[in-house]
């Protein structure tokens, strides 16, 4: 308690901005949740491969963004990701695990890259990173928690409906990115 008062103000704001960054853009949020939805729909082992692999792929993208390594088509990639993931959920698509992992990993890379280049100047890097990763993980958890309705009869169509919403949002963002 008392020691915390000694942590620089910049440290606390770094953590908070890291925590709030992934949830501040709706395009990011729905894509993250869609990963969780799809993972839950795919069932084992995807439901855990995706949340384990996603943060690492995303951090890889973030690292590239921070270092200034360009990644072509980031904006379109992010906008497309929500649409593609939404369509996957609507179609209840069941590609082989590695295909799903590559799709999600690629999108993770794009999202991470965008976050990396948007990092606020002067923030504390260490705590920003930790806050960022925690927020992303929690968004997945939300998606997976919603996706758990997949095990009920009424849940499967509902889940696909949610996928349709995500896809519609994705189309909107794609249109914005291209316009």
């Amino acid at each position: 308690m008392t020691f915390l008062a000694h942590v620089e103000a910049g440290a606390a704001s770094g953590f908070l901005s890291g925590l709030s960054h992934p949830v501040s853009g709706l395009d990011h949020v729905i894509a993250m949740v869609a990963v969780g939805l799809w993972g839950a729909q795919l069932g084992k082992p995807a439901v855990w491969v995706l949340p384990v692999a996603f943060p690492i792929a995303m951090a890889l993208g973030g690292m590239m963004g921070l270092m200034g390594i360009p990644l072509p088509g980031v904006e379109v990639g992010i906008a497309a990701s929500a649409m593609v993931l939404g369509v996957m959920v609507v179609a209840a698509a069941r590609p082989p695990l590695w295909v799903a992992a590559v799709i999600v990993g690629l999108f993770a890379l794009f999202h991470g890259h965008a976050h990396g280049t948007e990092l606020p100047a002067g923030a504390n890097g260490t705590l920003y990173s930790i806050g960022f990763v925690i927020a992303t993980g929690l968004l997945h958890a939300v998606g997976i928690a919603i996706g758990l309705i997949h095990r009920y009869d009424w849940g499967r169509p509902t889940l696909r409906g949610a996928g349709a919403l995500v896809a519609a949002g994705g189309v909107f963002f794609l249109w914005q990115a291209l316009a």
Partner: protein
Amino acid sequence: MPLAHLVQTGFGGFYDGLAHWALTPQDVLLVVAFALLAGLAGKQRARQLVLALPSAWLLGGLLGLLVPSLMPPELATTLSFGLVGLLVALDRRLPAAAFFALILAAAGLHGVANGSTMATTGPGWLGLVGATLAVFIAVSLIPALLVGLKKPAARVAVRVGGSWIAAASLLMIGWLFRAG
């Protein structure tokens, strides 16, 4: 290091060292990653960790205390905890020799950084003892919470934790080499 300026608790060097460990994210993440790794691997690894990690930390710390110029670069202390986090994400059960070697290398490295900070910013050996005790408590308690986990979902949660630690490491590396 962002928080390398020493925290003063007003409780003397021992508690300053303890608080310094708790407020240095690289050090906390490394110790937590090792604790998760050992917790997933079972009781034997958990016991080995309780003995080996604080010893390696103290050894490295003494070295850093005696030769503060050995302060390792932040890249090294960041890569090391990322590697251990990755091993947790992959749920790899290391052979004993590799496990001990990894502890000696990674915890020793962080210990050197710790000892060097203690030497240059104030509390000295008493601070190192405090930090080592904090590490010892952490590696005693965390694996004990995990060794009993049998449900696949619970193990997955731990692996996700490891993946987050690895991700934080990658982002921090990007941060260290950030453009502009």
